[in-house]
């Protein structure tokens, strides 16, 4: 059976791979959107924290013998800690200034982290074994899907839903939303906004690290694994509407699928289609697909 002159199996296969990529985009852009919402800073270091998550898992595994499942929990916490320290010591100092200083400060952190890991581990990358329980494959009829990739999609969707629940249905989430809307007023009600901001940054980069651990068995763990991804994730967040959490997740998955389709018809363009979509979306809807018109 053919669709647009392409075997439908190939189409569905690429669609599945697109969803796997899209789930990485979704988790990463979710973190980026939360951080932007509260801090009003575009966290250029998001990809570096993603890389850091993968490396923490790798180092924990090879030096301390910590297995994948423990690393999936520990790495995000460690990275969140590092992120909060960075926020507390440095990022905090540029809040009053033009937002581009936040962008530049986090960009400089990328250079330090990537360079540091290149010094320590070289640029070629380290293999990270897929956990044993997920080494099999599922036959979907139109393609053979490795179990691990299915797990990635399931884990990403779970994390996105959990984050949504925390933000929309808990007291902490209510504080967070209040701080996003009017941080001064929230402070006036006696809520410790600076602490909330630090925690938000930690949570955002923790999500990035979680995605990094998920990615470790699929991609080689290498110092530049984040910087190629972060540019795409930026585009995802801008298309979704900066600061829109729902928009970030939906757009992340959606663009993964768009990429998958592009790979069928014009495979070289698949890594660039996102930017074309971004330019087109911004021309029609300047605030992004799910963003409110401001700025």
């Amino acid at each position, binding site marked *: 059976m053919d669709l647009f002159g392409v075997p439908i199996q190939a189409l569905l296969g690429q669609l599945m791979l697109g969803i796997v990529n899209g789930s990485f985009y979704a988790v990463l852009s979710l973190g980026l959107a939360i951080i932007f919402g509260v801090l009003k800073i575009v966290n250029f270091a998001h990809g570096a924290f993603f890389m850091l998550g993968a490396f923490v898992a790798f180092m924990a595994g090879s030096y301390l013998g910590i297995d994948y499942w423990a690393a999936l929990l520990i790495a995000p916490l460690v990275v969140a800690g590092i992120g909060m320290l960075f926020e507390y010591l440095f990022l905090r100092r540029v809040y009053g200034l*033009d937002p*581009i200083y936040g*962008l530049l400060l986090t960009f400089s*952190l990328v250079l*330090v982290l990537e360079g540091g890991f290149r010094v320590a581990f070289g640029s070629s990358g380290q293999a990270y074994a897929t956990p044993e329980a997920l080494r099999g494959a599922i036959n979907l009829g139109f393609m053979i899907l490795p179990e691990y990739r299915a797990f990635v999609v399931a884990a990403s969707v779970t994390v996105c839903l959990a984050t949504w629940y925390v933000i929309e249905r808990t007291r902490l989430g209510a504080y967070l939303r209040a701080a996003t809307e009017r941080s001064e007023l929230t402070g006036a009600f006696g809520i410790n906004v600076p602490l909330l901001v630090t925690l938000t940054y930690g949570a955002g980069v923790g999500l990035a690290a979680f995605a990094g651990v998920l990615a470790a068995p699929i991609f080689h763990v290498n110092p530049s694994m984040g910087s190629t991804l972060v540019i795409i994730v930026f585009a995802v967040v801008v298309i979704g509407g900066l600061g829109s959490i729902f928009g970030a997740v939906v757009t992340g998955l959606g663009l993964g699928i768009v990429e998958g389709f592009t790979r069928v018809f014009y495979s070289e363009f698949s*890594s660039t289609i996102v*930017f*074309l979509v971004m330019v087109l979306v911004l021309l029609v809807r300047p605030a992004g697909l799910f963003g409110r018109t401001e700025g």
Partner: protein
Amino acid sequence: MQTALRLVAVLALAALLAVPLFPQIVYPVFVMQTLCFMLFACAFNLLLGHTGILSFGHAAFLGSGAYITGYCAKFLALPAELSILAGTLTGAALGAVFGALAIRRSGIYLAMITLAMSQLVYFFYLQAPFTGAEDGMQQIPRGTLFGLLDLHNDVTLYYVVFATIAGGLWVVWRTVNSPFGAVLRAIREHEPRAISLGYPVARYKVVVFTLSAGLSGLAGSMKAIIFQLAALNDVHWHTSGDVVLMTLLGGMNTVFGPAAGALLVSALTRYLDPFGAWVTVVIGVVFMACVLVFREGIVGKLQHVLRRRPREKRQAVDREGMVRTSE
């Protein structure tokens, strides 16, 4: 104190002119590369420092200059001056397109749009049949300038590059110190007021985008002639980040500060090269320090110290040390 600055400038100029005579002290090709980055950074600063627009896609203009010059010289066998002109004009044309699209937004969004468009340009050069993809476009012929000056001669090449870059920098200086430049600053300081005064702000922004991109293209063209190579890292977004660093480091509220920043970054990159990846770490730390405590940049700070203004005025300058983009 102005005389001290002037003396330094004259000494620096004399040193630059003497470079080809002492190749054992400093490698002329390194100086030529640095000169290109100086022009690139000063051209970029027309947008960032003087108009308050952060473009995160300037690598597209530098890279296009390099590739188009290379294409004209290598495949169309055009003389050097026409190839360079073609590279510069391509940069300018691309700048007009980027500008026209990007200025519909401001601040962070504008930066993201330019980044996205520069990724499209990157894709073009990765895929286009004439660019040699990952290998880069190699063995670009240097040719002869105006049929008179043989650019294969390293000394001739050096002075041609020097003169061209000096010309480019003069254009930057002239632009900043012109009525046009005054309007740009008005846009930076208070865009709604500039609009209400009747200035066609959008048109000004597109023009300064075009100018900045054209000069960046010129820098790229010269780079292609010097190295006889146009490569993908000229169009890579890392280069767009580097030029922001150079500008910030040198001082974005000055005309030639970015050139000092470019010199420092080039020198760091070159002389720390034996330490491998440590270069990136060092540059990252310098960048971080610069954003946190040193936002006026080297030249900005120097001017500031040399002027010895009364305290109130100095504080006013401090506040100007931050770019303001209108939201």
